[in-house]
């Protein structure tokens, strides 16, 4: 282990793993509870179009993927609010176009660009000091906003209609969450890749959901699992010479199915309640 930590790129990878693991799993709690996974998937594909365009124009992939992600959020919200289409249809329309644009831009690149592949599959061991600063900044922003607006997020997630009626701007809270999710996906792309970033958002939160009935505890468990799986996954990937993203997701997959099994055992072992006392 000590020889592992002697490598600078491993140290940066471990810090990156902890940061990405915590941001993704924190925002993931609300993504899971609000059923926003499909939006996340759409945004991730949209980012790829931004990255490909950046490579084509020789611009910054980070800036272009942020712009692409935010454009995706705005377009999805606009189409679902201004048309009679359901949210999942508007996501499907926008993310298909974004994916087509990504393929088009990649095709227009006249030379082979290995960096594009790192955005598809990710590699935590290639994160730079600059990447860590960006991850840290976005992580602090996400954590502060989720904590500051915790009660508004809680109410508008549980019962959006009543939250809006009582004076909480549920639509605005929803847009804020979409923007934070977009930023989270953007900063995670290079580390875990476009194909696996959604797993890091959804799996720790879904696992935590099986283990608690408290939203605050769900957030804590989710973050703990996200950080644990990311660091363990990175170490295992190093020793097994395996891709980091998939190793992390496999660990999260195992914890998810374990939690699912535990919940089933707990529900089945509960004594039956007399229905006459349940009015």
């Amino acid at each position: 282990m000590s020889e592992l930590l002697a490598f600078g790129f491993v140290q940066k990878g471990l810090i990156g793993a902890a940061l990405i693991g915590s941001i993704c799993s924190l925002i993931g709690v609300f993504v899971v509870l609000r059923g926003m996974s499909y939006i996340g998937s759409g945004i991730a594909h949209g980012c790829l179009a931004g990255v490909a365009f950046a490579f084509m124009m020789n611009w910054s992939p980070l800036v272009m993927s942020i712009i692409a992600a935010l454009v995706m959020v705005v377009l999805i919200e606009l189409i679902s609010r201004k048309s009679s289409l359901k949210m999942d249809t508007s996501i499907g329309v926008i993310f298909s176009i974004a994916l087509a644009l990504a393929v088009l831009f990649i095709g227009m690149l006249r030379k082979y660009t290995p960096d594009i592949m790192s955005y598809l599959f990710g590699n935590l061991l290639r994160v730079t000091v600059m990447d860590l600063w960006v991850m840290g900044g976005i992580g602090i922003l996400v954590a502060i906003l989720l904590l500051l607006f915790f009660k508004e997020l809680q109410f508008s997630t549980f019962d959006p209609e009543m939250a809006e009626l009582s004076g909480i701007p549920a639509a605005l809270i929803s847009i804020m969450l979409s923007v934070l999710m977009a930023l989270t996906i953007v900063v995670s792309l290079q580390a875990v890749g476009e194909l696996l970033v959604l797993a890091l958002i959804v799996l720790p939160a879904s696992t935590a959901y099986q283990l608690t009935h408290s939203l605050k505890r769900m957030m804590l468990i989710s973050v703990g699992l996200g950080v644990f799986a990311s660091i363990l996954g990175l170490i295992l990937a190093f020793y097994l010479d395996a891709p980091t993203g998939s190793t992390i997701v496999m660990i999260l997959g195992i914890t998810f199915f374990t939690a699912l099994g535990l919940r089933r055992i707990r529900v089945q072992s509960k004594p039956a309640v007399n229905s006459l006392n349940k009015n």
Partner: protein
Amino acid sequence: MIAEIQNIDQLVSVSGVTLGYPGVIALSGIDFEVHKGEFIGIVGPNGSGKSTLLKGLLGLLPLQAGTIHFHGSDHQQIRLIRKRIGYVPQKNKNDLQFPALVREVVLMGLYAQIGWLRQPQKIHREMALESLKNVGMAEFSERPIGELSGGQQQRVMIARALVASPQLLLLDEPTASVDIYAQRAILEILEKLNRQMGITILMVSHDINEIVHSCDKILLLNGNVNIFGTPNQVLTKDNLKEVYGDRIYVYDHHGHPHVLVGDFSE
């Protein structure tokens, strides 16, 4: 425009109201008044506009015609008025497997009052517990909302609507899809809130017989038909036939009208 208050006890005045959705008029020419401390039932067949009327009162639907005044204030000031109205929506619209304890769900009713960037204090937690006591659910305060029965969950939603001490409580079919024991328990709680605590109640129900004993007045609705008065005034055979059709029969049950549907000989 501030309406002239005809009666100091008048809480809501609805006059010539038309409500609907784009291209569809659901209700027209609705007139009724609610006085402080009254328990009013809104009944009518499916699609008669009962829930639409509640949405209109809450300002979720714009008025196409007519006026609504709440305690003298014009309905245009709906954002202010809404704070004085407690609302219990139809059951199962929200995710009841959400990770929240019963007391946390009730506390949500105070979030707008607590304000942005502020956390609930001890006094708010005490208010939530008091509200749970009023619906007989205090002992369940630490239980996850998802572990309660349908009737218990509905009582928690009533506690959430009550926690901010509203002047008017609106309920949209609170006893729908719960068993008869739970229906009775919910109605007994609403009667207690109305009779003992003086809370004014406006409740939509699909079941006339269920609420006829609890209500001071009934609003019988169906599109442009609206008949308002005491249960004995409203629930006559002629009125019910106009709203529900011919196969309706009304008989007197200990001084209250009881409604049956079917083919009965006179």
